[in-house]
């Protein structure tokens, strides 16, 4: 059996905000169809790493997406970043249809309106995330879980090979979390690759096939059993404090 292609290769990635080094010498790679949890304490650099991979913050090192070294914005069109809910104005006057259709912008020229094929792709993306009938609804009227699914649909409409979800499961109730993770699993089976930043270590252990523990640098990387053992957790979260996190 051949190994799936590498979708994301990160080599010696470092990010600094002024004198503060948020990430140092981070290296790892992710293959097509992988569903990986990125764990770490607050301030560990999870969001910074996602923002660097998306080209939103400056970094040193190399990022390769689907075999292409990322030097320009256009090199990252296959990557979708879904920020934390607190970073998004969920009261913005936009419908779910319009939100999802915005994922198609990479296929349009300046000023070009999306045509019927783009609308069909957006409808298909909404159906895949289980929101086929909510297209006309304003974003502000969705629940937390529905809003996350709508953003996921935007990423699918973008035809992203790699989706980065920053704290996507925060504020979603337990049935919603389970439904989201079922959906993640289905999308990964279909060939999408997903990195999900989360604080929920029990969830990471239970529902993910791979965990990357970071605290400014990669502390552990492997199956949940490997990356979430006591020694790795202590190195990631600090002595003793991880036990309260796991609990």
């Amino acid at each position, binding site marked *: 059996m051949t190994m799936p292609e590498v979708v994301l290769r990160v080599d010696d990635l470092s990010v600094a*905000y*002024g004198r503060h080094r948020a990430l140092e010498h981070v290296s790892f790679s992710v293959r097509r169809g992988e569903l990986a949890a990125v764990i770490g304490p607050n301030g560990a650099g999870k969001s910074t790493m996602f*923002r660097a991979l*998306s*080209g*939103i913050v400056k970094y040193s090192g190399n990022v390769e997406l689907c075999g292409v070294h990322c030097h320009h*914005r*256009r090199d*990252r*069109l296959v*990557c*979708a*970043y879904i*920020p934390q809910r607190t970073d*998004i*104005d969920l009261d*913005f*006057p*936009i*419908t779910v249809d*319009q*939100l999802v259709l*915005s*994922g198609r*912008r*990479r296929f349009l020229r*300046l*000023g070009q*309106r999306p045509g019927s094929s783009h609308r069909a792709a957006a409808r298909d993306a909404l159906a895949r995330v289980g929101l086929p009938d909510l297209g006309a609804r*304003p974003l*502000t009227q969705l629940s937390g879980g529905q809003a996350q699914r709508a953003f996921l649909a*935007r990423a699918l409409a*973008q035809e992203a090979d790699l989706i980065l979800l920053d704290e996507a499961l925060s504020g979603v109730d337990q049935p919603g979390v389970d439904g989201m993770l079922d959906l993640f699993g289905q999308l990964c089976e279909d060939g999408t690759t997903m990195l999900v930043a989360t604080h929920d270590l029990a969830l990471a252990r239970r529902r993910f096939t791979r965990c990357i523990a970071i605290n400014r640098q990669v502390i552990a990387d492997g199956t949940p059993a490997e990356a979430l053992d006591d020694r790795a957790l202590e190195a990631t979260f600090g002595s003793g404090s991880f036990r309260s996190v796991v609990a």
Partner: protein
Amino acid sequence: MAALSWVTDPYQSEFMRNAAMVAVLVGVLAPTVGVWVVLRRLAYLGDAMSHGTLAGVAGAFLIGASITVGALAAGVTMGLLVAVLERQRRVSEDSAIGVVETFMFALGVILVSRNDNVGVDLTHFLFGQIVTATRHDLAVNGLLTLVALLLVFVAFHDLRMTTFDAAHAAQVGIPVGAIGTVLIVLISITVVVSLSTVGLLMSVAMLITPAAAARLVTHQVATMTAVAIGIGGASALGGLTLSYHLSTPPGPTIAVVTVGWFALAAGWSAIAGRSAGIAGRHHVGRAVAASDV
């Protein structure tokens, strides 16, 4: 019949018809641009740009250049200066705007003080002098409005995407910085077109208030824009007509009418919100009863 003549009487003369057309141009353009200013929470920048334009107007007066060009140049310069200052991590957006506004307004006052003859004419630009609008003013404002509306139409989707989620917009290939610059140019054009109607000091009323009112009663940017234009146009014509009958200054009267619309929208939104809350509680009550919990 009396009501109709109350509306039409003011517009028997050509200067009032010119004034009405100039007012409608502002009533359409300012809310169209204002929608983006409100959604991006840039009301302070809009206000500051209207004040900072004084430097361009006064400078143009002194050297005998076009007021329109002077005001446009000042607006764009101001927007760019704010953008440059904002790059300093420790300078917040409002601080940057405050610094640049103070500089530009102070520069304007200094330039005015250098020439005593400028003062009287500048009063027109500070408070508006719509009834002196000429056909030339109408043509210039009409052209600027057309250009601005065309820019908004072409960039509408990208404006929405960069306003809602700039990170995603950049990721799918939208030039976020260029769209931001387009918005600065649009605000500058709006301030220039507002000069002759409500004046510099109250142009922010037409820029912000109709859009803020529309935001209260709509759920989409397109409908918000349409409602804001409706409020802007009605305020411009309504305010002008009122000012004729009440013998009040047109600019401030138009500004007061926009605030009246805002109060109506706020009242409507509060009532609708309360009704939705009551309906929601009934719905939850029925759901709880149905589930027999």
